[in-house]
């Protein structure tokens, strides 16, 4: 409960500092929204509404254990809170969690839910946040985050495949592609290196 209050105060202060109209415990008919920022972008345009819903750890309905124990909030809770915001007419719904790990887990779950190809792109509306968040909360896919790393990995993969191809070809196939000169050189080497040690020395002398 104390953690929740702390979250709310920070959000309210942050909104007011930026000059937004801030509502607390707003109720538009679909359930409570902890904090709403009414952002007046331009006089000619309607306000943009950002809603913040604090996700708690208790499973109220089923009397179960805390699902914050392993920093994982249930999909049920995430879905419910997001649609509470959507039904309340919010433009963006931010789900506020206790810590960074939980916020990342929530954002990841939102991405996953959105990946099924539903009519509604949940990740375009909702996101997980934690109170001290300073950096961007948007999850960047690894391909965009480390494009160089991806290239290196693919290059190495190609090299490995080439090597494999070179040394693991069936013997018959290799011989067919061998020129006469290569064949002689190979046989000579084979002859030199396959003799017993003593014999080789004797020949060398």
């Amino acid at each position, binding site marked *: 409960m104390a953690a929740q209050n702390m979250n709310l105060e920070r959000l309210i202060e942050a909104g007011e500092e930026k000059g937004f109209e801030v509502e607390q415990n707003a109720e538009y008919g*679909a*359930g409570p929204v902890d904090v709403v920022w009414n952002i007046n972008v331009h006089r000619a345009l309607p306000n943009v509404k950002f809603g913040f819903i604090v996700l708690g750890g208790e499973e109220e309905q*089923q009397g179960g254990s805390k699902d914050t124990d392993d920093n994982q909030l249930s*999909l049920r809770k995430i*879905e419910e809170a997001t649609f*509470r915001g959507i039904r309340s007419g919010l433009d963006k719904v931010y789900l506020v969690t206790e810590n960074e790990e939980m916020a990342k887990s929530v954002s990841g779950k939102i991405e*996953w839910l959105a990946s*099924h190809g539903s009519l*509604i792109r949940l990740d375009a509306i909702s996101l997980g946040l934690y109170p001290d968040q300073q950096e961007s909360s948007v999850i960047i896919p690894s391909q965009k985050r480390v494009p160089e790393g991806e290239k290196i990995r693919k290059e190495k993969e190609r090299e490995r495949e080439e090597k494999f191809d070179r040394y693991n070809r069936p013997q018959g196939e290799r011989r067919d592609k061998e020129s006469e000169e290569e064949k002689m050189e190979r046989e000579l080497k084979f002859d030199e290196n396959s003799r017993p040690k003593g014999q080789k020395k004797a020949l060398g002398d």
Partner: protein
Amino acid sequence: MSQQGENSYSEPERRAQERLQSIDTLKAPIIQMGRDMGYEVIENHDLGAGPVHITWVFKPGSESLPDMRLGFICLTEFSNSSINEGVARAMLNLIDKLVFVVPTETMTKEIKDAIESMPDSSILQLRKYVTVLTPSTLVSKQGIRGARERESSETGGEVI
């Protein structure tokens, strides 16, 4: 013996049991009706967002047309959170139309009102997506032609 077993349940467990039982009661006629009408009936359809109690899959008969999924979610008590959760589950599980099945007419009205009371600024018009009814309404409305259907037959039109 059985009484002892019943008494051993804690209060939340007993409530959960009762809830599951009444959901099963609500589900039964919908499963039967879906089968009778020749639809593919899926129980607890779940792509990962949580179960949709019953889904009727309607196949339009052409490979180039997508299947249509009509989802049924049974609600045993009214609350905004259960509506939010139901709508979320249906949309995220790729259900094309959602039907909330409730035990009483009073509850039908409560849920309809809650869905229609959405603010104008909301990006969703849920009344276009959600239908609320009781199993008895569903059964009794079988065989009754809609107004459009009646009109077209009266004017000699053909229902394709």
